[in-house]
């Protein structure tokens, strides 16, 4: 695809939107992440891969502020965010989805997405009471943004259904929608295709590409399906036992002897490539 390689070039030349510099994290005596650095190019798709327990989710948790790194820095557009609260980081424009779906199961798809916009809402309880008109206007604007996402992810027929009634693949899609509702600059996706069948994976890959292209959102992706990762990533970082062992374009990473060892040397781990 000519268009993709052009996009890739642009992503390589552009500055990095999210920079992680030498972060480490220990839990008791266990080192989950050790001195890992990575750069997510603005408007690109960066994938983090590695065997189970390599520290991928811990790394993502440090970017989104759920964990505080023991050492190192996390910079969003040059601003240090490692010590900020998760809610502040969300407000600065980093949204994420979770490996295990985190939705309000009793609420409808629409309500879940509206909640996703919560951090963007300005009117508090008091101002909603006093400046009723203004709060209502704001509500309409948010609903419009959410409707755009509903259309984008083809959720029209599910709008009023509780998320508990949805199939697994659809719930994953709603979760992506909830993250998008934040209007993020950077989207962290933790195994968005885990447990999906081939059709659902293809749909999800399509949505990720569209999110990246049409909304210009930088994507950081953890995924086990190598086929998908190699297909859609601009850049791949490989972790093994908490360390970064390789980084580069999908082609470079696939040729890297360390990666081959980490995946094949172990004898069984890894995806279908």
């Amino acid at each position, binding site marked *: 695809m000519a268009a993709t390689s052009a996009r890739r070039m642009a992503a390589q030349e552009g500055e990095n939107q999210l920079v992680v510099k030498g972060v480490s994290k220990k839990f008791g005596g266990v080192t989950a992440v050790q001195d890992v650095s990575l750069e997510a190019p603005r408007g690109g798709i960066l994938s983090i891969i590695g065997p189970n327990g390599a520290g991928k989710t811990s790394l993502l948790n440090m970017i989104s502020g759920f964990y505080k790194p023991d050492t190192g820095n996390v910079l969003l557009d040059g601003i240090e965010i490692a010590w900020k609260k998760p809610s502040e980081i969300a407000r600065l424009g980093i949204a994420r989805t979770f490996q295990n779906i985190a939705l309000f199961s009793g609420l409808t798809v629409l309500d879940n997405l509206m909640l996703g916009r919560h951090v963007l809402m300005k009117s508090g309880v008091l101002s909603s009471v006093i400046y009723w008109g203004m709060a209502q206007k704001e509500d309409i604007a948010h609903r419009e943004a959410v409707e755009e996402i509903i259309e*984008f992810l083809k959720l*029209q027929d599910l709008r009023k259904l509780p998320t508990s009634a949805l199939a697994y693949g659809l719930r994953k899609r709603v979760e992506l929608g909830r993250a998008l509702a934040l209007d993020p600059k950077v989207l962290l996706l933790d195994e968005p295709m885990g447990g999906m069948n081939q059709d659902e994976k293809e749909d999800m890959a399509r949505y990720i590409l569209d999110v990246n292209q049409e909304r210009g959102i930088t994507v950081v992706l953890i995924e086990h399906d190598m086929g998908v990762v190699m297909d859609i990533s601009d850049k791949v970082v490989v972790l093994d036992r908490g360390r970064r062992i390789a980084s580069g374009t999908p082609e470079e990473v696939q040729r890297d002897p360390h990666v081959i060892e980490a995946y094949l040397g172990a004898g069984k781990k890894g995806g279908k490539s």
Partner: protein
Amino acid sequence: MSLLDSPRTDTLPKLLQRNAEENPRAAGIREKTRGVWQTLSWSQYRDHVRDFASGLAALGFKRGDKLSVVGDNRPQLYVAQLAAQSLGGVSVPVYQDSIAAELVYVLNHAETSIIVAEDQEQVDKALLLKAKLPNLRWIVFDDPRGLWAYDDPALRSFESVLEEGRKFAQGKPDFVAAELAKGTADDIAMIAYTSGTTGNPKGAMLSHRNMIAAAEAFIEVNDVKPGDNWLSYLPMAWVGDAAFSLGMALVGKLVANCPESPETVQRDLRELGPHAMLAPPRIWESLLTQMQVKSGDASPLKRGVYEYFRGLAERCELKRTDGNPLSLVERLGLATGEFFVYGPVRDQLGLRHARWCYTGGAPLGPDTYRFFRSFGINLKQVYGATEASALISCQANAEANPNTVGRPIPRIEVKIDDRGEVMLKGPNVFKGYFKQEDATRDTITGDGWLKTGDAGFFDKQGHLVIIDRAKDVGKLSDGTAFAPQFIENKLKFSPFIREAVAFGHEQPMVVAMIAIDMQTVGTWAEKRGLAYTSFMDLSRKPEVAQLIAGEIAKANATLPDVQQVKRFLLLNKELEADDAEMTRTRKVRRRFVAEKYAKVIEAFYNGGKQVEVTMEITFEDGRKSTLTSQIAVHDLPAAAPAMKAA
């Protein structure tokens, strides 16, 4: 006075202009997007059509050129058709779920030069076929989603065509108006490709006169008011949708409402509460099936109440059709039922405001028909054909009857020829098949009568009764007449039977191939703890065969002995349009099925208990694969008197 008598109102786009002048701010067309019904007034609708027409002119579209729309119902696609017609062009809507090979045939045969596609899915299809379509110059898309990486020079966005149109109009401000004025009633408005139960599709040329005359006649005999809401959810390539969403909407100033997506139709229907509704029998049947499933899932009390009032309503409806007065108790019962059951059910179905509903396109089982009528839904039959601009006859409010299709609409003449075939003459009769003079000569007689291909007769009240396709009506080997559809409709009343194909022509007995309804049979099986994996697995279960045998026995009880189904089998896949077993409007292609399943039919009559079937399956993307399996043939005892109670 007919609209056709004035040169200001004798084409569809001229009628749009009239509506925009007479009612500029009234709603013209509506679409649900982003969860909200968004309205274009008649003047906005007209402006879009005018700008798009200018844009088409800028792209080199000329009088007589063909424009195809493909996609789900969208105002933009109606705008595109009217814009093409404004320039004297012809609209050729195609089925959005057609597979590639069918599309190539129709688009090439029609010489389409511009395709207006709804979204990426349709654009992909068009791009894939581009090399095989020498006449195609532009592909215009409405929804840009997913199309960011596409750089084909033939692609244009709908918006950009409107934009080009506005620029073009600055240079030639009167161009479109002049082209519009040049149009006459006898210009071809659209070519409707008939899905055809045999052979390649044929393109029926319908003039503006055809469509306007049909709409005027229909409005004359039906309760249609300006501003009435209409749900435009039927395939745009089906002439029925064109007749209503374009013809009737423009002539009668109805508002066409496009649903949000095919998956939301039912919810949108309920939200909109249209004033009128047209649906093919399949949809009525599936609504009924849904209701039966829902009542089966309800608590015993609710189910009891529902069943009681349903029974009461059906008894009263029967009494009413026989002309007997209802007793006071019955009337009180109906009033109570109206409050507890009938009203809420109509509301759930989205038919609370519907003053009339029609079923058409194929016969509807009388029991299904009676069910809806008994619940206070003014369901009537309409009969038509693509070649007659979709309309031949319909029923008046007081004359609803499941067995007839009503009286011919005004200004058309209908007769039955000596072979029993229905023939008609009138302003709605088409101009012939595009580039198929032979087929045209076979269909229109020298003195101008259109042969419908349907066998029928007039009953004592002068209502037309359609028996079956003339070529399908056969005889059993003992000489008894055999109309397969009649039997199939009886079978299809069962919620467990989705599709049935009956055979018996020149054979000693009637046999049927049954496709089960996956949803209802699945629920039934789950309730009995019967595990299954797929349609094929489910249809092989002996318990399911027993269930269906019971259902067939019920249908047999209402049939004369010789017409009863004696043997049947359960198909291991659904009948599919992609496998050419059904038309795109979901009518069974009987001949094709008979050929495809020749071995099965043979087994029916040589007494075999098992038959090996090898079938070709076509996937949605056109790939094919074959499937070989054993299908059991089941026997049915003659209907025992005990079953008659059911």
